[in-house]
């Protein structure tokens, strides 16, 4: 095989981890740069019955990219844009990219109108010229960690704050090329192949077929990234989005672009009580249609306290005035015109007053620079948490961050917030709650001070998972299952559903060669 496999231990070392705290093991790693090279590696390993873990930018936090022995196929060098097309039906541009291309690179290429178009077809170049001259098109999927790869985003059906309005990654994928474990290729476009009443017959590129039954479970009616996306008459493209690389290697992705909204502006409001913050949030959630916010985010008092402490002690977060001792709700709007901004602002004032907040004590960002400041505040929360954990880890290496990624249905938001607050209080655990409250999806991070805290925190999470599943929620709303949440997946859907998911995987990957240990434990793999 031409493609090089690196086997020196110290060179493989960095690739045995991702942003979760797991470290795995692997015998070797290769860096294909094209679909052909991916196939080459696939087949090479398949012949030797070697399991494969596929990696993108390794920004995931559930261990999806952490290898469980065997070989690693790292797609970070498979990172070019391959072409553009015009979707006449939906009147929008389409951009096809390799899986290793980063989300930030796509954004930059679109903003600068500067893709490397070497090797693009004539047709692609024509469409590209049109795109460049028109201007005003962007990729409106969103993710918090912008250095994630597009392939990774497809794998986990990634989302971010603005997915409240624009939808998760799934809503932006128009097509994929997938390589199955045996090297066969599958080219799928949205709207081409569908399941029928839970059965599917998927046609591959070489005109062979894969047939099978879809699992029969119903996904909860919440923002969800746990387990396979299943609907009885689903578009089969959706099988490969959010399947965490367990069904095949996504070798090429066609993304749908959207018209760039004219103005983005944001407002950070402060509340002295959770009750009031929730009242404001519920009012915001009623805004729909053209008035729907792009994002609604929540930060509890502990989050603001943490940042304020750093402002006062470490003099960091320059550019932000001192945060008040309060809870925060951030809302962002993407509006077509100025007059809409003014109308929305008047509405906001009323909503704030109704919720007992002072419109004079809010932080409004109408310029890109101010918006940038609010974005940096939002990112500062998880970053500061990581920093604190790192410090505590130095004293006690067994400690690690404990975080949840659960979402509940609309009518359970109040309940879940109370559940989090009261149970943390009762156990005397230091917790922070923040996140995409628009989707009823809050991350709760516990900062353990010692091993005891850590164990009690984990037990608390399990109790929460049980209650949230009961309430119709999900254990993973955006991070995926990876290696860390396999037990929760099982709790959520039950043993039968897991068996059905395994059976589905076997249709595509009979030998269980792809991403062992992700979504399913390895031992039971036949």
């Amino acid at each position, binding site marked *: 095989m031409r493609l090089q496999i690196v086997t020196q231990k110290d060179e493989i070392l*960095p690739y045995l981890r991702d942003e979760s705290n797991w470290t795995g093991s692997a015998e070797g790693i290769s860096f294909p740069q094209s679909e052909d090279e991916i196939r080459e590696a696939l087949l090479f390993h398949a012949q030797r019955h070697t399991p494969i873990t596929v990696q993108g930018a390794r920004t995931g936090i559930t261990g999806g990219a952490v290898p469980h022995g065997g070989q690693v196929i790292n797609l970070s060098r498979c990172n070019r844009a391959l072409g553009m097309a015009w979707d006449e039906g939906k009147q929008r541009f389409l951009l096809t990219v390799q899986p290793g291309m980063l989300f930030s690179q796509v954004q*930059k290429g679109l903003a600068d109108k500067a893709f490397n178009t070497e090797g693009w077809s004539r047709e692609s170049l024509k469409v590209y010229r049109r795109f460049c001259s028109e201007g005003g098109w962007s990729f409106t999927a969103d993710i918090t960690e912008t250095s994630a790869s597009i392939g990774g985003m497809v794998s986990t059906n990634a989302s971010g704050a603005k997915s409240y309005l624009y939808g998760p990654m799934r809503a932006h994928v128009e097509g994929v090329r997938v390589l199955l474990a045996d090297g066969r290729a599958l080219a799928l476009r949205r709207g081409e192949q569908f399941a029928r009443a839970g059965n599917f017959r998927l046609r591959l590129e070489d005109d062979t077929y894969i047939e099978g039954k879809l699992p029969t479970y119903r996904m909860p009616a919440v923002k969800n990234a746990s387990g396979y996306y299943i609907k009885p008459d689903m578009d089969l493209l959706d099988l490969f989005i959010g399947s965490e690389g367990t069904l095949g290697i996504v070798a090429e992705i066609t993304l749908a672009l959207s018209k760039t909204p004219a103005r983005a502006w944001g407002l950070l409001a402060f509340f002295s009580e959770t009750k009031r913050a929730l009242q404001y949030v519920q009012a915001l959630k009623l805004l729909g249609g053209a008035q729907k916010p792009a994002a609604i985010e929540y930060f509890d008092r502990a989050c603001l306290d943490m940042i304020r402490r750093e402002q006062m002690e470490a003099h960091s977060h*320059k550019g932000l005035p001192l945060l008040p001792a309060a809870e925060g709700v951030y809302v962002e709007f993407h509006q077509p015109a100025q007059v809409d901004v003014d109308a929305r602002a008047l509405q906001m004032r009323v909503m704030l007053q109704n919720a007992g907040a002072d419109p004079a004590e809010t932080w409004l960002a109408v310029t890109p620079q101010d918006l940038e400041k609010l974005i*940096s505040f939002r990112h500062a929360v998880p970053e500061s948490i990581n920093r604190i954990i790192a410090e505590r880890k130095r004293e006690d290496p067994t400690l690690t961050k404990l975080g949840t990624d659960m979402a509940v249905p609309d009518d359970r938001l109040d309940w879940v917030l109370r559940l989090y607050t009261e149970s943390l209080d009762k156990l005397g655990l230091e917790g922070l709650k923040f996140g995409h409250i628009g989707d009823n999806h809050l991350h709760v991070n516990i900062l353990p001070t010692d091993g005891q805290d850590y164990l009690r925190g984990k037990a608390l999470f399990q109790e929460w998972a049980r209650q949230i599943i009961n309430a119709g929620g999900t254990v993973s709303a955006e991070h995926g299952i990876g290696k860390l949440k396999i037990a929760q997946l099982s709790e959520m859907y039950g043993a039968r559903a897991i068996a059905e998911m395994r059976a589905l995987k076997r249709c595509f990957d009979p030998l269980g060669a792809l991403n062992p240990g992700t979504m399913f434990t390895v031992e039971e793999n036949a």
Partner: protein
Amino acid sequence: MSEIRVVTEKCTGCRLCLPACPYGAISMSGKKALISAACVFCGACVPVCRFDAIELFTEKPAWDEAPSSSGIWVFAEQVDGKVKPVVLELLGEASALARKKASKITAVWLGPDAPDQLQCLIAQGADEVIAVTDARLAERDELLYPQVLARLAVTYRPEIFLVGATGFGRSIAPRAASALDTGLTADCTRLDIDPQSGLLLQTRPAFGGNLLATILCRTRRPQMATVRPKVMQALPADYSRSGNVRMESMDLSGMAGLCIESTHVNREDGPGLDNAEVVVGIGRGIGSARQVKLYKHLAAALGAGLAASRAVVDLGWVDYSHQVGQTGITIAPKVYLAFGISGSVQHMAGLSENTHLVAVNKDENAPIFAVADERVRADCNEVAAALLRQLGGDAARE
């Protein structure tokens, strides 16, 4: 009166001129281009129009109306009696200019006294030194100095007056220029003499360094410019050169000064960015504040200075003293290892053209690659970690 107009009969509404204006002064009024009062008559739009629909009438610089003046002056900025390096660079540049237009080069020294080493200014290119000494000039007083300089300029009428664009220089030069009612161009990176008119051509970065504007001072004298440190070349000292050091007596009693209560000098830890031979630079591409530590270790392992782009400083990942660029400091190391730096012209403006630049960036299209001596299109953190390992260090993972 200068005028610019769009010849509407010729304008086809193609809109090509709109983005060509650096000042955003062109918009569309219906189907025709319209130039607003924001226009500074720079003429960037004229060649862009394929239909010759933009007409610019500017008064020809009436240099023959300028008051008579001669000589190139260089302000010999000093700290604690030591001449600043930029002064020697300016003397070198003045010599180059004098070769194109014969001029006497005068170094102007202000201080509490005139030490012997003023002779070195002659060795470095000055034909003479004018020294004003007074106890009040011991402090670097940005209210008093401009008045002294202005009075000297009125008396001796130099044609050109160069000041180093240090923080001090950039404060006293505009006040002096305003007092003289003459033109001042800030932060020049290139100077030349226009062969036709004999005027000083002053080139400086604008728009954060993305544009280079060439400026003329038409009828006022002296033509004043502040010049970026570490851009011009000092001459090797030639002690065989001769020249006078002239003490100029001046009564400063009528001049207001500042009440400077205290002066503090920063302590330097490790190789200052000013002196380091190797500098490690970090930009947004390193990803997050967490990664800064890796680069601090790397800089320490290399014995290098640590620089940062403005983005990184604004984010609070490192403090302002590390900022290199347009609104930070200028450095001239032998080697600059740029990690995750996109290479904005603002940042690059702070780096000497002679530095060997190694750029490491995941973004293939980063502008820095166009100006790098060595290009590495790869993940900067991975390369930095590998480099640190090979130096025997430890990336100290969290």
